[in-house]
């Protein structure tokens, strides 16, 4: 593939964006006014306590019933993809942490592996194990944050503090490993920069024994709680077929009964060496998504335990040239981030910077399902569904 063709295929068209199609909202006066009631259009966000950041949802309501929604995004747009085109491969690495900032390690893993694939190098086994341990810890942290905020949205205040207490322990491990708690920049292209600190394995094992009963504690507050059941069962139902049509991935897809997990389907890092299950749901409602994520937390613990026990000795950095100049070509690599399939599509023109870098963010794609899921439900359910989709606006807007 020559440089010219690459540039032509992937040039972003710069013609004017057509006006947004809002016909599905029926914002004009209803054709058949019944009694003299009319629809209410309210604006939820971008400053709203339950939209998890700066999501703006325009709701069309009949009383409290939702007739239609429209998500307005972009309030947190930083042009991450464009920045990627203006940085070298190494320099761009920390930027990806700022997309899904509650699962920064997963973002970094996806990016590093994509570039490695492009360079055709492989990280050493030990690095892969460290990557798995940290990524799974991060998945746990992300799910804990999700659980706390989701429960808070539905009115249960207390789980938030429990989950944050336990998430703190994970962040402490991150901090000890690489100095940062949230935007960790834990991995490098070709492996890991840092060797594990002394006592890392022990600390992780201690954490595993510490957190297992805590997950039961969260479940005790919610799983069989009548109010929780009523608020989540049959709320925001989406079928597996709809999920696939919309490109929804992650726990949302699995709760609808589709057994798709990138860790199993296209194993990356060291995942093929571990024994774990993919929890799935049946009904595709908010409660199933809750159960799936709770089960995933436990599966993560299983993976971490196996990884810590089987961590091999050896180098942590692969043979990567000082100046990263991948050959001309393109690559798509995806991993299973806590929120779904996180993909990186990188087009290289043979220079030190990507020619085009595209991120497939799970939050952004999953957010599309909001409208399908909330039609006909009540305002309170919109909040529950936004919570259950587990979106991070940093990733949606990029």
């Amino acid at each position, binding site marked *: 593939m020559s440089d010219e063709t690459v540039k032509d295929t992937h040039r972003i068209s710069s013609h004017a964006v057509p006006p947004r199609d809002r016909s599905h909202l029926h914002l004009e006066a209803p054709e058949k006014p019944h009694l003299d009631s009319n629809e*209410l259009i*309210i*604006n939820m966000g971008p400053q*709203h*306590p*339950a939209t998890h950041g700066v999501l703006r949802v325009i709701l069309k309501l009949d009383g*409290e019933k939702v007739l239609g929604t429209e998500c307005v995004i972009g309030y947190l747009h930083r042009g991450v993809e464009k920045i990627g085109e203006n940085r070298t491969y190494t320099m761009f690495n920390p930027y990806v942490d700022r997309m899904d900032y509650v699962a920064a390690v997963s973002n970094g893993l996806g990016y590093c592996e994509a570039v490695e694939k492009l360079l055709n190098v492989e990280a050493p086994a030990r690095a892969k194990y460290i990557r798995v341990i940290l990524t799974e810890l991060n998945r746990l942290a992300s799910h804990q944050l999700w659980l706390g905020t989701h*429960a*808070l*949205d*539905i*009115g*249960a*205040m*207390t789980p*938030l*503090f*429990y989950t944050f*207490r336990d998430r703190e322990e994970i962040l402490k491990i991150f901090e000890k490993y690489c100095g940062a708690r949230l935007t960790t920049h834990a991995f490098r292209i070709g492996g890991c920069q840092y060797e594990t600190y002394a006592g890392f394995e022990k600390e992780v094992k201690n954490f595993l024994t510490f957190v297992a009963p805590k997950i039961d504690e969260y479940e005790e*507050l*919610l799983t069989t*709680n009548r*109010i*929780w059941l*009523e*608020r989540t069962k049959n709320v925001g139902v989406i079928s597996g077929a709809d999920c696939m049509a919309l490109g929804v991935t992650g726990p949302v897809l699995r709760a609808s009964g589709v057994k798709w997990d990138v860790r199993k389907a296209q194993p990356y890092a060291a995942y093929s060496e571990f024994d774990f299950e993919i929890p799935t749901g049946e009904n595709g409602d908010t409660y199933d998504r809750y159960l799936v994520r709770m089960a995933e937390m436990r599966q993560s613990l299983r993976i971490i335990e196996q990884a810590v026990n089987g961590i091999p000795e050896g180098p942590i950095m692969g043979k990567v040239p000082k100046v990263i100049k991948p050959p001309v070509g393109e690559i798509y690599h995806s991993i299973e981030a806590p929120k779904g399939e996180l993909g990186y599509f990188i087009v290289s023109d043979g220079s030190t910077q990507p020619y085009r870098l595209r991120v497939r963010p799970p939050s952004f794609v999953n957010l599309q399902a909001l409208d399908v899921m909330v039609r006909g439900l*009540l*305002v*309170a*359910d919109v*909040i529950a569904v936004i919570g259950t989709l587990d979106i991070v606006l940093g990733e949606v807007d990029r």
Partner: protein
Amino acid sequence: MLNQFMSYLGSNVTPGSANNQLWALIYVFIIFAGVSLAVVAMNWFERKALAHFQIRLGPMRVGPHGLLQPIADAIKLMLKEDIIPQEADQFVFWIAPVIGLLAAFTVYTVIPFGPSQAVSDMNIGILFMLGVSSLGVLGIVVAGWASNSHYPLIGALRSSAQMVSYEIAMGMSVVSAVLMTSFNKDGTGTLSMIGIVRSQQDQGIWFLFKFFPLGLVAFVTFVIAMIAETNRAPFDMAEAESELTAGYHTEYSGLRWSLFMLSEYAAMIAVSSIAVTLWLGGWLRPFPNLLHAPAWDFIFSLFPGLTFLGLAAIAFIGVARMPAHFSFKIQRIGLAVFAALLGCMALLLLLLAVAGRSADSSIAARFREGIDYVYWFILKVALFMYLFIWLRATWPRYRFDQLMRIGWKVLLPITLGVLVLTAIVGVLAS
């Protein structure tokens, strides 16, 4: 005037019934100040208790253990800019919190803190209470409407629908309690709040345990309805923070907002007082008929003093556990002074219990009696306040339609059934 003042001290009727305007006025002031203080205390206690449920410390900085936090909050709220949205209906916006506050405080005129420790003993006391407390919804509707904004409007509509529906279940369970008052020798019941407590004393049983489990079911339905009526978790749809930002008072700020808070907490205390009066024997101490020897009277009269002694002990432990660092010096001294005050209060009450031991009608004995009544009443109400906080910390929030379903399809049939069964059982038993 002094004569009138002193002569009433010996009477055993409420100032309202004795037509003693002066004492009635004094009672009104005491209750107003007391309830306001209780709201402040409740504010602090809720934040602390909720924090401890949630593995936090809660307010710790303003005063020792955040004891001065409510005062700091009050000052902050008073100093805040008073915003009235341009598009709002100015007058209605202004009057809405006042309506809520008036409704919440007027209820206290019929609440008996003791047989004569009430502003008035109305013969339709419970009806008056139900009527006035449901006026509170007017303040909320009007606030939501006057704000001229979507979120407050939805909050207000939810709230009014909720309060109106739960009023019915609440009323029905109240009726079954009122019905229980009539199962005595002469077969006449009473609607007077004082009369209801008296009849529990005469029948020798709290209505909570009467016709077990009928009284209990009526009580539980009343408690559920009263939580919904006061818009508290898990029925706090009207101000569902995560859904409607702040519900009907989204547009309110500063002092006006604090009036809403004041009336919400005052209403909570009011409905808890009603529950206590109807089912938990109001001012009666435990087992007033069974353990009625003077010795028992004396033992029970020690309780107020002992409670304060316990509080003082907790405060002193707090002093001892405070870090010895010099920056905590003022806080430590402050808490020690507070503990000492509580200790003095305890000593005073214990002295009074000893001095007023004889069953004669000396001033000390009367005073001791009055304090006992108020103490038991407040203790029972405080348990309800704790229940409110406990529920808020534990449960998620119901959805609006589920709330209505519970009100109409669950609580109403249950209360109706209990009412009918109470009547049948009562007739068969007597």
